[in-house]
């Protein structure tokens, strides 16, 4: 039996490693503080993502996510909420 990734606490096999998407502009984003627009919500946050600003798609728009040290091991999509609470707006002219 292969060991599981205790660090990431996922059910994924250790030999596969964490799932992530290679961002070509990672270095540029870190130096110039340019946000990375992405739709890869299932990408695991790796230690070298810390400090980078992401704009993560929630199905409608790109929401800002600033990666901190505590977020390592979570997915990008966890921080870009897809649902909004319903708020009733009263129409004035009726």
């Amino acid at each position, binding site marked *: 039996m292969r060991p599981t990734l205790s660090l990431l606490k996922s059910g994924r096999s250790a030999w596969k490693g964490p799932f992530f998407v290679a961002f070509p502009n990672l270095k540029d984003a870190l130096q110039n503080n340019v946000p990375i627009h992405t739709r890869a919500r299932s990408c695991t946050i790796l230690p070298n993502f810390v400090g980078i600003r992401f704009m993560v798609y929630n199905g409608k728009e790109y929401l800002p996510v600033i990666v901190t040290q*505590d*977020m390592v091991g*979570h997915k990008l*999509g*966890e*921080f870009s*909420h897809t649902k909004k609470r319903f708020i009733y707006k009263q129409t004035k002219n009726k």
Partner: protein
Amino acid sequence: MHILGINLPDSHLTRFALTNFYGVGHKTAHRICARLQIHDRCKVKNLTPFQVTALSSFLSSPGTVPPIPRLPLASKSFVAPPPNTPVQPLLAKIEADQAARKPKSKAMEALSSLKIESELRREIRENIGHQRMIGSYVGKRHAMHLPVRGQNTQTNAKTARRLNKLERH
């Protein structure tokens, strides 16, 4: 009988009474009994004072309890030392073997990392607090008293409404 402030009913079997501890289920209770050599049909009132102290010392700090001394039987090829051998070096050798022995089985490791009662509650609280602090979906759902793992909320979700909160315990 009370152990660490938890009531263990006298008429219950020990391995079921142990599940009164928060964080001890049937499997863990069985393991603890095996570790402390309490037999399967032993009721709480039949526990010896030694077993009671062993139980309470084990449950108060599962991580620091030394492993059970294991004294294996002699193998077939064992040749006894001559009768006039001094005892001290032999005892020293046995003690050295005991010290070198590391807990190998998974069950032992599971028990040494056992967390019960307030320690476990604190861990759960910290985990929820971590999720909330980093602003993840899980933390948000806890704060809203709603199910975390995608269950329906149109009806039901009663358990989540009751349990899911930031200060869970």
